[in-house]
């Protein structure tokens, strides 16, 4: 009998029955394997270590600059999950999705495990001794570099790492600490400084009855999203506060608003002055601004403003009425209002509304003065990078140290950072993982992950009093050949100034000494060791301090003639990049949890897309998934179309953060990088890059691909009216406020 006697159908039938039998047998304990696994025990564990039971340690989140206190759940010596630390007023015991993904920085399979040196064009793993020898040969005690010959490029950095970096540069008689932030809030900060006298006022969202926000995404990408989300929750409790959002492309905050207006990008200042003009008609506001401003504001009648901004004329008196009714209010300017040639003026005009409405001291306050100004963060800007780029281009820079910044990825094409970087003879990257910039360096030093290192952090946005946040390891280092940035800096300083640093065997000893020295400021009576232990246990040192007063400089607001936007026949669309709360400027694209979490507005995952208004798409006969070429004067990218009603019809938008080419397996090849199509537009006042001022043209390529998203049906809300909405123009004012109709 040969097997050919059984036909296929018989074979499958028999297979089906015996397969079922095998499956049933498998329901027993066939996977119990006595003696197959080791159950190693502890030799001498701490008393509180119980296998299977998690222990929480306090630390500080380093995913963004908010400085949230976190707690890490550690079990069997491994960090499993992060939570908020209730001792921290900034986080209030809560944590965001970006913070949750912090464990993936630590466990990332693309992490660097040994130092590497570039030899014949390729990286070669070397020992720490060799790496440090290479480093100290250039930057040790025998180094002849000084002044502008050496530069340190970082992202936002605070605490004692910043202090050590400063001392390191001082030892070269240099102050070249370049802080680069591709999404820098510098324009808004400059306007705050000019109008209110401080760079970053404290927003008391929960005290406001109405928030008028011009593109400020305080729930998603603001200076302290976790803290502000908690405040926002209180703001929405009875009596429910009203949120009005005005922006060209809907942000996460915009999606939460009661009223959302699509505005032509860059005309936010005109709209704000239109509201100011409308408010000044009321007797109680008539003397709120200097007479010449009041006079100039007369040009901002509602029809002119409506024509410039593209928002219905009635909306202006409508919003002014609501502002009048619901006091105190809070008026916020955001990146999409500030990233323009007149960005500073826009922000100043928006802030003027706060002065008219007398929100100072009610919903806007100054930050408490900081007892340790040397620890406060050096906030980043794009002008700093331009300066470094020039120095590199001129061949001034002989050695460059890079950490926490990736300008090869984020610098626009007209800042040829990558090619100028090649002119620097010695480039060192300090990183947990290779990125596009580290790939071009000569020496790469693998850092401990934030879950393995000690540190101190001070948030740039301190909601109340002052917090000094302590970071401590949540587990032993995964890779023996990694080291902390503080330890490396200390080693270099010991080479250069042995006397000053010989008392500190490591960075831990340094920050312990420094923090315990600050004991009198925190009015503690405990011993040094107890004070330090308490600081580690609580994860934060708090100092209550009264808020500072804000100044009022209404006269600094320039009120010119309302100018309509010029049309550009070659590039008819406004290009508004969107900043995702998770990927930010692309630094978190290596974390798969963030790649796979759907974008809150579109639900798209693992990709880039082009948002276009459905009406515009219909006119151009574009369907979802059509591959579009978005071309500006400087470059072009291609991505799938996504029809999105939350956008101004003459505007297209693309998310930033994707399009990596050298940032590990989870980031590379996902989407495209819109940083590379920005036009060279700068804010007139600050010289900062104007990120929202690019104009583009949309070309259909004829190709089509499916948009990978969680949304399901393409029609909004599954074809059901799950959340009732109406056009803002149709809303009746009388139903929203009472005072006006009396």
């Amino acid at each position, binding site marked *: *009998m040969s097997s050919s*006697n*059984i036909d296929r159908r*018989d074979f499958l*039938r*028999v297979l089906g*029955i*015996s397969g*079922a*039998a*095998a499956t*049933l*047998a498998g*329901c*027993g*304990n066939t*996977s*119990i*394997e*006595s*003696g*197959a*696994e*080791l*159950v*190693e*025990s*502890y*030799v*001498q*564990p701490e008393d509180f270590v*119980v*296998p*299977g*039971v998690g222990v929480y340690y306090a630390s500080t989140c380093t995913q963004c600059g908010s400085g949230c206190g976190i707690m890490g759940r550690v079990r069997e010596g491994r960090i499993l999950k992060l939570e908020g630390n209730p001792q921290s007023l900034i986080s209030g015991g809560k944590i965001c999705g970006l913070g949750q993904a912090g464990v993936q920085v630590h466990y990332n399979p693309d992490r660097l495990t040994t130092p590497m040196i570039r030899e014949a064009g390729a990286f070669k793993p070397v020992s720490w001794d060799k790496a440090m020898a290479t480093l100290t040969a250039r930057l040790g005690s025998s180094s002849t570099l000084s002044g502008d010959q050496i530069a340190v490029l970082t992202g936002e950095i605070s605490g004692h790492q910043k202090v050590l970096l400063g001392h390191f540069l001082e030892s070269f008689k240099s102050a070249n600490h370049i802080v680069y932030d591709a999404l820098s809030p510098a324009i808004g900060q400059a306007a705050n400084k000019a109008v209110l006298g401080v760079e970053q006022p404290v927003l008391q969202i929960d005290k406001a009855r109405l928030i008028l926000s011009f593109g400020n995404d305080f729930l998603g990408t603001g200076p302290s999203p976790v803290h502000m989300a908690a405040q926002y929750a209180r703001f929405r409790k009875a009596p429910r506060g009203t949120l009005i959002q005005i922006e060209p492309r809907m942000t996460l905050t915009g999606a939460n608003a009661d009223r959302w207006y699509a505005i032509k990008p860059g005309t936010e200042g005109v709209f704000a002055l239109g509201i100011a003009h409308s408010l000044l008609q009321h007797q109680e506001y008539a003397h709120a601004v200097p007479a010449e401003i009041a006079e100039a504001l007369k040009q901002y009648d509602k029809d002119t403003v409506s024509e410039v901004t593209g928002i219905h004329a009635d909306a202006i008196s409508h919003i002014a009425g609501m502002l009048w009714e619901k006091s105190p209010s809070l008026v916020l300017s955001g990146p999409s209002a500030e990233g323009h040639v007149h960005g500073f003026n826009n922000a100043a005009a928006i802030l003027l509304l706060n002065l008219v409405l007398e929100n100072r001291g009610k919903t806007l306050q100054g930050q408490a003065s900081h007892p340790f100004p040397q620890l406060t963060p050096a906030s980043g800007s794009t002008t700093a990078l331009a300066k470094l780029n020039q120095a590199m281009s001129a061949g001034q820079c002989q050695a460059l140290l890079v950490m926490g910044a990736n300008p090869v990825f984020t610098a626009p094409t007209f800042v040829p950072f990558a090619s100028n970087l090649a002119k620097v003879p010695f480039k060192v990257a300090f990183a947990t993982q290779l990125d596009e910039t580290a790939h071009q360096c000569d020496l790469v030093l693998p850092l401990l992950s934030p879950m393995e290192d000690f540190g101190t952090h001070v948030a740039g946005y301190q909601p109340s009093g002052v917090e000094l946040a302590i970071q401590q390891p949540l587990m032993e280092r995964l890779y023996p050949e990694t080291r902390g940035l503080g330890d490396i800096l200390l080693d270099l300083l010991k080479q250069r100034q042995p006397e000053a640093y010989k008392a500190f065997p490591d960075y831990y000893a340094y920050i312990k000494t420094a923090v315990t020295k600050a004991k009198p400021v925190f009015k503690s009576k405990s011993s040094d060791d107890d004070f330090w232990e308490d600081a580690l246990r609580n994860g934060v040192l708090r100092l209550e301090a009264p808020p500072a007063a804000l100044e009022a400089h209404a006269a600094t607001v320039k009120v010119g003639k309302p100018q309509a936007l010029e049309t550009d026949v070659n590039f008819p669309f406004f290009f508004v990049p969107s900043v995702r709360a998770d990927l930010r400027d692309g630094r978190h694209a290596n974390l798969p949890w963030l790649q796979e979490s759907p974008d809150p507005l579109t639900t798209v995952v693992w990709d880039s897309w082009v948002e276009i208004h459905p009406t515009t798409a219909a006119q151009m006969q574009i369907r979802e998934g059509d591959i579009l070429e978005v071309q500006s004067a400087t470059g072009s990218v291609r991505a799938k179309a996504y029809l999105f009603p939350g956008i101004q019809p003459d505007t297209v938008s693309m998310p930033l953060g994707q399009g990596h080419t050298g940032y590990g397996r989870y980031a590379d090849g996902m989407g495209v990088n819109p940083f590379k199509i920005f036009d060279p537009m700068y804010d007139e006042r600050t010289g900062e890059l104007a990120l929202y001022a690019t104009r583009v043209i949309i070309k259909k390529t004829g190709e089509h691909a499916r948009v990978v998203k969680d949304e399901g049906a393409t029609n909004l809300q599954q074809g059901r009216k799950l959340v009732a909405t109406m056009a803002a123009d149709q809303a009746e004012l009388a139903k929203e406020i009472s005072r006006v109709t009396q």
Partner: protein
Amino acid sequence: MKVRMKNILVWLSLLVLCGTATGEPFVQGGAIGSQTDDGYNALGPVVEQPIEFPHNTHAGQMGINCMYCHTYARRSAVSGIPRLDKCMGCHKLIESVKDKPRIKKLFEYWEKKEPIPWKKVHDLPDFVRFNHERHIQRFYFREDRPVREVCGYCHGDVASMTTARRVKALSMGWCVSCHQKDHLENAATTKTSNGPNDCWQCHK
């Protein structure tokens, strides 16, 4: 010829099916002759350990409570293996057995500060979540039953063995058979209750 072949195959598979589909596989299936003391053909293999630890001396002759060494069992889902300094806490002071080969080995591990690579004897599939703490708290602390009996429900009479060997089936039907029994709620009452019957209690 073709028909006969087909019939044989179908009957063969049905036979296999009958043997396993009636419920608990190890009552009728399993290795023949490997019978556990409660009637399952599921006796575990003898597992050779790095040190032949004599449970019979410690728990049997000396009468040491199981939880003196297995201290995590009442506190955690896993009972864990005793920490090495636990062994040393006593054996540093017991001069009479210091020269025995097993104790010498123990001291070697201690001096190297290396954990002893014990092999796991009582294993469960990864999709089963068993909680030691719940069972110990219920039967030992609330019902006040003897510790050898309580641990023995799943581990057998380890106090009569040297190194442990699996003598219970630890299969789902075996677990359920105990969960279906009426157990006293505590030592002071005659009120009874059963173990949970929800899938998610163990499969989560």
